[in-house]
């Protein structure tokens, strides 16, 4: 099983309080995984740990047989929440997607025709070719989200970690984004997206990872996305180092 992302007994802390406890799960490339759980379940924390942004306290994260330790460079593309971005930044959609080439360009290498074609391909896959020369604030929310997916594609990463990509997208925008996401999956990529809208899970994702501070369930959507599992995840009490109210 070499084309695999493996989490083994992973514990990650956020602000020195463990947010994800002893989580073990594995995933195949070529799948779209919904990362589900109530607020504060540790979804973002887990994504950041896989992206190498937070240290793993126990256990290990492996991809294709190699342990991921610290920033993974090109292999993993992390796409943070849309609110975190300054949309007035002086950059066009093409410029944004070109950023995906930075890790392989290093400091001095010139932008080559190969890089340009990777960028063009990424724009094509995400249906953004016509908008390539727009400044990023002139895009709609769905287009902005696809632009970030295109940049991740241009990076030619194997794993795509998306933090709440569907937040704020209307039905059409969600569908367009899902189309782009499936294209990545069909190209053998592994996509993991934190997600909070339970109604759309079955239409968008083929696998789920349900957590609430610890693993609740993991597997194909058809088998795992059940009422019992969800009830368990949304009602269980989790040790989090401090008391909090369940609303």
């Amino acid at each position, binding site marked *: 099983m070499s084309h695999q992302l493996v989490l083994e007994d992973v514990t990650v802390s956020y602000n020195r309080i463990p947010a994800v406890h002893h989580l073990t799960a594995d995933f195949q490339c070529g799948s779209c995984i919904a990362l589900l759980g109530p607020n504060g379940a540790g979804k973002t924390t887990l994504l950041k740990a896989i992206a190498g*942004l937070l240290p793993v306290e126990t256990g290990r994260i492996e991809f294709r047989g190699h342990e991921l330790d610290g920033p993974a460079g090109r292999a993993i593309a992390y796409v943070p929440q849309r609110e975190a971005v300054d949309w007035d930044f*002086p*950059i066009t959609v093409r410029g944004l997607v070109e950023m995906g080439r930075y890790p392989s*360009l290093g400091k001095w290498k010139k932008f080559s025709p190969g890089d340009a074609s990777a960028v063009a391909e990424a724009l094509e896959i995400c249906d953004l070719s016509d908008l390539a020369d727009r400044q990023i604030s002139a895009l709609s929310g769905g287009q902005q989200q696809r632009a970030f997916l295109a940049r991740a594609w241009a990076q030619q990463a194997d794993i795509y970690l998306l933090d709440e990509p569907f937040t704020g997208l209307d039905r059409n925008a969600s569908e367009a984004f899902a189309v782009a996401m499936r294209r990545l999956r069909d190209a053998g990529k592994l996509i993991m997206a934190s997600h909070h809208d339970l109604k759309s899970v079955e239409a968008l994702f083929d696998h789920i990872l349900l957590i609430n501070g610890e693993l609740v369930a993991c597997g194909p959507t058809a088998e795992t996305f059940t009422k019992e599992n969800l009830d368990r995840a949304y009602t269980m009490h989790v040790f989090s180092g401090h008391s909090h109210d369940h609303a």
Partner: protein
Amino acid sequence: MTWLLEPFQYEFMQRALLACVLIGFTNGFLGAFVVIRRLALMADALSHSLLPGLAVSAILVGLSPAGLLLGGLLAAVFVALGGHVISRSSRVKEETAIAALYIIAFAIGIALIKYAGVKVSLDHFLFGNILGVGDSDLWTSYAITCFALILLVAFQRPLLLAIFEASVARSQGVAVGGLLGMLILLIVLAMVSSLQAVGVLLSLGLLILPAATIYLLSDSFDTMLWGGGALGMFGAVVGLIFSFWANIPSGPAIVLILGAIFLLAYFFSPRYGIFSRYFQRRHLHEESLERWKK
């Protein structure tokens, strides 16, 4: 054309011209990063915090350029680092911590300047005098220009990513903290280099105005970088000639020229100027309607 060339028959004006080219370009180029990272007020605080460093070095070693450079640099780095430490170790946020430290530093500077062994007028530090630029000042500016340009061009890609999305940059293994620290160090260096020409108070104008102007004109960061450098250079040189003929100090003359260009862009920029936005609003509205109909 004689009015253009006439000032430069004097040697001090030739030096001043060279200084304007170097300082204008470096500050304008660096300014692009300052503007997009929203560091303008931080840079303002740092410029004020140069003063105690200058005062201490004037007391200790007199008015040697190397001493002033080092003194100003240490004081500004002390304020930047101190602000970082205070914000990390207490609930006070970084901009408050830096403002608190810089105003303390500024007060210390004003109090100390009185004790400088050599006769130093406060005006000289606050407003500069480009006509007094010496050879060593020119060499210092030249070195700072080369140093800053090489670093900024070398690290342009990771720095841009670090400013735009720090977490993505980190996930790609970019040392975000180190790069932003480098940016602040370069800001301080650029300010020190423009001290002689425009002084502590007006150095911010050279740093911010060219990049802010291009930001109103273009959506390309490369244009902001090189255009900011070119505009900074142009504004400094025109300001110098203006100061010669209008018989006003060079610092305000340079900042006034750059400020006038900034205001022109604010009003008349084809895309982001307020006049053109007013007249285009209808058009944009229709365009967005089209988009939503799809």
